[in-house]
């Protein structure tokens, strides 16, 4: 009988009764063939592999991460709470040491959900990885976390949530934003003034294959992780870099995903996108599970797998080498710039427009952050959507200094409610959330 070398947990929640719309890629059928493959391979009978029932996340778990407009219940469904809850279950089991590693094979996904949520973007409403991480920080005192997002689309939601947090390293490897939604994720996007360098973007050109992905892993991701020394590595395991994915242009494979998982050794993997539901997902998911469990994955391949046909051209390899060079330079310089900024004690602003493709909403945001020598700085966001909802949000970070915290409460009390539909205060030092309208 098969048994794992590392005790591995699995939450499988295919939400067979939930869809964005009947023909949407994010529909009931998405994990059907994955389930068939996982069941037929007998994965759940492997000794040392444990399946858990997902927990259901609470509104408080959302409020630890997001500002939902007008409120939480209006922007989510129950399925989102189970999906986030599933990720949290795996996190809990890892931190309780019941398992060494785990995989939350859940839907709907979450990595395009930003800190402020007016609706769904890129099929995501709430950020399931961020909700898990902040829950684990609150419950188990986890501090330094690295997120490696291997979805083909830039994890712009997760990037936004951790943009100002120097204790969370966010690395996204994805198809170049000039050729794919959401159009962001360039190397120069490297974190807010207090957290320069802890956001790392590795855009890869279309048709990058196994060689390219593993090159980036070996030459950028692993060395950076080595230096950052995270307490926890989370993999946002999107599966749409696959050569058969209908909405992307990459040449990655099931074997490549398993190999990447084997070398990255994430503590927690969470499913994100991936819409080649029949030709890719069944094989990638089995590959990832086996790799996490330390089992042989060499026999996992798609019926039409042909490595020769998928090999990347030399120009693709050269391009990738350049991206890696650029990133290593940014990583090297980040801490210095960060320190410079923090000494300045001034406030920095960011003015943005955010498009919610799934729900067709446009949001205008004006963000202000204090450069603070003692903490990651008080953050305020003035946000208005074209649905006519205008809110003001105040985020007091987890390790806020006394000054930033007091300034946060003062701002909450003094902001003129007549100018906004709602005002929110998220105090992460005491895990409290306030709102008034």
């Amino acid at each position, binding site marked *: *009988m*098969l048994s794992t070398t590392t005790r591995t947990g699995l*939450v*499988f*929640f*295919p*939400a*067979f*009764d*939930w869809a964005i719309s*009947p*023909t949407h890629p994010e*529909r*009931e*059928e998405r994990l*059907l*063939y994955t*389930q*068939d*493959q996982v*069941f*037929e*391979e*007998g994965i759940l*009978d492997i000794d040392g592999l444990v*399946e*858990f*029932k*997902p927990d*259901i996340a609470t509104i408080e778990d959302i409020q630890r991460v997001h500002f939902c407009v007008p409120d939480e219940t209006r922007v989510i*469904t*129950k*399925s989102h709470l*189970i999906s986030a809850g599933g990720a949290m279950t795996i996190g809990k089991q890892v931190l309780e040491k019941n398992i060494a590693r785990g995989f939350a094979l859940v839907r709907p996904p979450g990595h395009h959900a930003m800190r402020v949520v007016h609706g769904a973007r890129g099929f995501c409403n709430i950020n399931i990885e961020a909700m898990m991480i902040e829950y684990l920080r609150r419950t188990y005192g986890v501090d330094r976390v690295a997120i490696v997002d291997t979805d083909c689309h830039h994890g712009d939601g997760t990037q936004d949530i951790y943009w100002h947090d120097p204790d969370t390293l966010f690395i996204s490897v994805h198809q170049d934003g000039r050729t794919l939604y959401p159009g962001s994720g360039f190397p120069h996007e490297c974190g807010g003034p207090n957290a320069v360098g802890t956001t790392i973007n590795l855009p890869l050109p279309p048709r990058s294959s196994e060689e390219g992905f593993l090159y980036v892993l070996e030459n950028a991701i692993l060395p950076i992780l080595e230096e950052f020394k995270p307490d926890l590595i989370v993999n946002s395991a999107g599966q749409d870099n696959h050569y058969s994915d*209908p909405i992307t242009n990459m040449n990655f494979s099931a074997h490549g995903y398993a190999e990447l998982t084997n070398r990255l050794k994430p503590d927690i993997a969470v499913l994100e996108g991936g819409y080649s539901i*029949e030709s890719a997902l*069944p*094989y990638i998911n*089995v590959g990832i599970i*086996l790799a996490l469990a330390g*089992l*042989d994955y060499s*026999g*996992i*391949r*798609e*019926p039409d797998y042909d490595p020769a046909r998928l090999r990347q051209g030399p120009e693709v390899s050269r391009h990738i080498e350049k991206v890696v060079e650029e990133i290593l330079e940014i990583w090297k310089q980040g801490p210095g710039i960060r320190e410079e900024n923090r000494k300045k004690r001034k406030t920095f602003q960011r003015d943005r427009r955010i498009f919610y493709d799934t729900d067709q909403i446009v949001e205008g945001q004006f963000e202000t952050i204090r450069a603070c020598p003692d903490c990651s700085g008080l953050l305020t966001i003035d946000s208005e959507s074209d649905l006519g909802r205008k809110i003001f949000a105040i985020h007091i970070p987890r390790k806020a200094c006394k000054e930033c915290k007091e300034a946060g409460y003062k701002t909450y009390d003094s902001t003129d409610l007549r100018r906004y539909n709602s005002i929110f205060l998220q105090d992460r030092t005491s895990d409290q959330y306030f709102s008034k309208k």
Partner: protein
Amino acid sequence: MIIGLDVGGTHTDAVLIGDGRILRQAKVPTDHANLFDCVWTGLDKVTADVPHGTIRRAVLSTTLTTNAIAEGKFAKTGVIVSAGPGIDPSNFRIGSHYHCISGSIDHRGREIQALREREVEELARKFRAEDIRQVAVISKFSIRNPEHELKMAKILRNSCDHVVLGHRISANLSFPRRIATAWLNAAVHPVHKLFFEAVGESLKKRGLEIPIFVLKADGGTMSFESSIDVPGQTILSGPAASVMGALPFASESGDTLVLDIGGTTTDMAVLVARVPLLEPLGGEIGGHKTLIRSLNTKSIALGGDSAVRVIDGELVIGPERHGPAMAYGGPFPTPTDALFVLGKALNGDVDASRRGLRPIADQLGAALEDAAGRILDLSCRMIIAAAGRMVEGINSKPVYTVKEMLSGYKVNPVEILALGGPAPFFAPRIEKLTGIQTSAVPQWHVANAIGAAMARNTSEVTLLADTERGVAIASEEDFTQKVGRDFSRNDAMSLAFELLREKCIKAGASESELDLEVVEDNQFNMVRGFYTAGRNIRIKVQTRPGLIPEYLELARSMFNHCLLPGAI
């Protein structure tokens, strides 16, 4: 009249039921080395002088196949496996004649790599040379497309006695379990066939031509004839007999915990409103996880005859059994001896029990009666703890839809039913410790044989339709049909019910036993590009485990005539 017979680990129980009453009952010691004799003795005792043509059926629950597996007394069996990409099939090696060949089918049942018939022919020659007469053939995803298994069987039929096809034994997905189950069915096929033919012959010699039914692990019955191809289904029928025996006395609305406290083990099961819970995929036998439809039962090595010792000042009960209780001439003190010391059990050698428990009391520094009380107490606590773990396991079973997740039913027993020899003595203590109403099943000492006698047929049919591929398959029924793009969920449902009805009647069910229900009813739109390319319909229907209508009268008379256990 109906005969029920249950071979247990320690005793074999037989009953003859008629006119709504237990007419006869017999208890003979089980002799695992000569199972036929003890089954025959049981049958002989309850059928002596019974007039011809008055016995409607005999239902047998035996340990035959279970023992055959445990003791390695099964036929030489060849296994041929065709896997394709995925986990290396050599991990699932079973038996000494296991071979992997080429050929591959994907999750939708499409052929990815053809079967090389030459490889099968070569193995057929090899098996013949090695005198292997039983063969199991299994391909991955064969329940989606049985073509490769059918081709293998066709080649092998010329040279073997019996070929088991993986897709016929269950429509559940799990290639490793399918391999183990197919092997099992092939390996016990000859011993099962010979045994029941011998039982039939012997009855015939007595002038009794009684249709023989066997009890299955899911608590249902099937005719001996239909069991020949799936003898594996009779494995683990022992716990099923007890559960069915407790069924008439269980709550019709709440959840019931059933405890069968035997000599060596205690088996436990959960009933939800009188319906026993099944294992999701299948039972486990001798370390093999299978696709054999089984009641969800757990067993702990603790019973009335378990050895009682003191280790490092701590009382230890089980897991081994060295023989019967000292009160019955056994060599070692047991919980049953504790019952004698406490004056609860009668008709045995109380002095022997006292002698046996004395050193234990001394080591515990307690009076004899106190020590006996502690033994009973610990036995009950161990059973309760195991039952708690079982219920927790059932409640933490994952579900895959938002609806099930939110409505999540939690098992919470409102009553406990105990059967087996020590049942009436354990029941009051268990009730006290749990605060849950606990009673012994009337006729607790033969309730298992009654359960076997009264069980009705169970069958299950799974129908998968893929309208894009234009095919509907019920793999266990050897049924494949072309379907059009307009084949609907309703069409699938009526087809499934039709197949189920046929299957039940074939397995010996009478019309009055047919209580059909839907277990699974799913339809997925298969969208390719932005258009619906077809529908993937998955239907599972079954007759759930239950009792034949005659049980009503019998249960009433048992209630009226039994000793009230609390009185003892």
